[in-house]
């Protein structure tokens, strides 16, 4: 009954507002249905109460005005407060984060979808956060622009080495890597990047290697028995 009531009252109000305007193609009922879909019945009811109280406040004495204002505020407070509380409690956005680093927030927690740092392009922020000393070996110098590599905060010429190692993953090594804790980070890129986890694993490495197979790239810690000599 109340649902029908809200729709009817709403339709009546919309028709009043539409009277001077002949350009609307839709009927008041259609617009009302649309509003109900967009806003929800409860919010629409609150808006009607606000309008009613606003009109009522012009007709009653000071005490009545205060009561009407209080009523509107309490309804607003309850409705918005509940919405904010539920969002804070249930949304992934407001969860306690274990590690506060750009790499963890992007790769592990998936807090934001980065335009620049997706797939293998996440390397600069990984280097910035977790590779303070490591030399990073890349299999091709066309993989990254020098500008992107410089965003790591380290000197790209001294940090990134091109070639000089076997960059293709062989079957057994791939199986071994995939059996270790890892994440396949894709973001907005087409090809994912294998990253060992936790990310702090890269912190003590002297060398890190970017490797590949036909399906993806792998960021392999040097201590996993890969060296430029092999």
């Amino acid at each position, binding site marked *: 009954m109340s649902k029908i009531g809200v729709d009817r009252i709403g339709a009546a109000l919309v028709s009043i507002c539409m009277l001077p305007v002949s350009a609307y193609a839709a009927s008041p009922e259609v617009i009302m249905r649309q509003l109900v879909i967009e806003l929800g019945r409860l919010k629409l009811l609150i808006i009607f109460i606000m309008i009613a109280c606003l009109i009522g406040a012009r007709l009653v004495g000071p005490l009545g005005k205060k009561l009407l204002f209080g009523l*509107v505020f309490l309804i607003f407070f309850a409705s918005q407060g509940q919405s*904010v509380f539920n969002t804070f409690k249930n949304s992934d956005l407001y969860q*306690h984060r*274990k590690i506060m*680093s750009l790499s963890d927030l992007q790769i592990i927690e998936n807090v934001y979808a*980065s335009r620049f740092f997706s797939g293998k392009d996440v390397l600069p922020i990984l280097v910035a*956060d977790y590779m303070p000393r490591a030399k990073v070996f890349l299999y091709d110098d066309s993989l990254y622009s020098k500008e992107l590599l410089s*965003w790591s905060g380290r000197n790209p010429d001294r940090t990134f080495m091109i070639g000089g190692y076997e960059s293709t993953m062989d079957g057994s090594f791939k199986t071994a890597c995939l059996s270790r804790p890892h994440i396949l980070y894709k973001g907005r890129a087409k090809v994912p990047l294998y990253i060992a986890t936790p990310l702090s694993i890269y912190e003590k490495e002297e060398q890190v290697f970017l490797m590949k197979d036909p399906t993806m790239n792998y960021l392999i810690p040097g201590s996993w028995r890969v060296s430029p000599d092999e």
Partner: protein
Amino acid sequence: MQLWIFVIGFLFSNLHKRTFDPVFRTLIALPIGWALFGICATIVYGVYFSAVSQVVLIVVLALATLALLVANIRQGALSRNSILLGGAGLIVLTGACILVNYLRIVTMVSDSSYLARFGQNIGLGNYEASRMVFSQWGPFVPFIHSITNLLDQKLYWQYQPVLSLNLVAIVFYTVYSIVRERKSTLKSFVAATVLVSVLVLSNLFLFHFFYIHVMLIGALYMYLFIFALIKMQEQPGRAYESLALLSLIAFSLARIEAPLYVTLILLIASFWQGWSYINRLKLIIPFVVLFVVWYARVYFMLPGSPDVLTKELTLAVIAVLVGFGLFAVVSRSKILDPIAKRTPLLTFMGLALVSILVTILKPEHMLASLVSTLENIFLGYGNWGLTWYFVLFLVLYFARRHATGRHWLSMLLVSYILLVYSLAFFSIPYHIGDYDSANRLMLQVLPLVLLYLSTQVAEFEVAARTSTVKNKVTRAQVSASGYR
């Protein structure tokens, strides 16, 4: 670090202890401290950008602290009460920092990661890896992130929720103090609670509370700037002048388009009746000089393929600033006097005309922007809930014909909305969703809407009572004269 920044800000605000009451002095300490940090960083990195610059910045900040301490001692401002007040402020701030650290919540979008990463590169003195940031955002927030390495952190995120808390506290207290000028303590407290709940009770605000970006910082400084402008008229002197100047500089350093907003605000507020020529220049000249020099420096720092701010746009900004400065200087001349007197109205009408013009030039683009913005605000796409309905309710509830409120603030709010609308002409249309620029710019202006509402609330019953008394007197006169 935030405690040190607070001390700098507190020492500064304590120099004006005769004007700023103790609570206000404590509340503005952190924003003032960060503003001074941002100005020092801009000067240091503007002059010399290298790995040593961070050390130089720390030395400059230390010297600034020392200078402010000496100034406090020489002025006799550092009384026992002031020290206790500063100490209490530090304890509260420490509590806020501990709470924020305990929550460990951060909200980000991709832009946040660039802001943070580029900022961290500034701290490392890596010029090539950070200069892109100057074509995307103002330097203020990246400079805050530049101290990440000093804090031995991978991401400096704690400053944002603490500043958000500070914004809420400042809005609450300023609204309270404005209403308190005419109402009882209880009524002022209730009014401040109602108005602040409008600000904080929305999912959009919740997101921005923890959000690494320039949004709430911009809102904080724009709010402080305009509050100081209001107070400058009521309490002339150096206290609110310096607060206004620091806030406008910090605001302009936070957002890339902020100098445009500042110019608009100054055109309306500082040319309003009652403002002296000297007071106007005290704000406009330092603002123009600092930002012409900064943008000239930015011109040479921009990368080969910049993002938003191109070299041509930089020159255009410099030209606008120089033109604005010259207009302010010669506004006292007899030829320009009639225009200068009507500057606020002309600015408002000019913006209205521009809005119409851009709508005619790109009707689909502009109307799509308008519709999206309205849908974001009123239909829930912008994550506002019922906020703007309640704001409308408050505006209509407290609207009074005889109100003597600060009219330039209402004109400024409408002009701001017109400017936001017109800016859509130069970019992609505003779109549906809470990340939309116009939606976020509405969040930036919301504290000012509440400030405006607080002036209406302060005058509400006074005006009503005055008109009731007038009515009673008129009725009494009428009945006495035998007409009834």
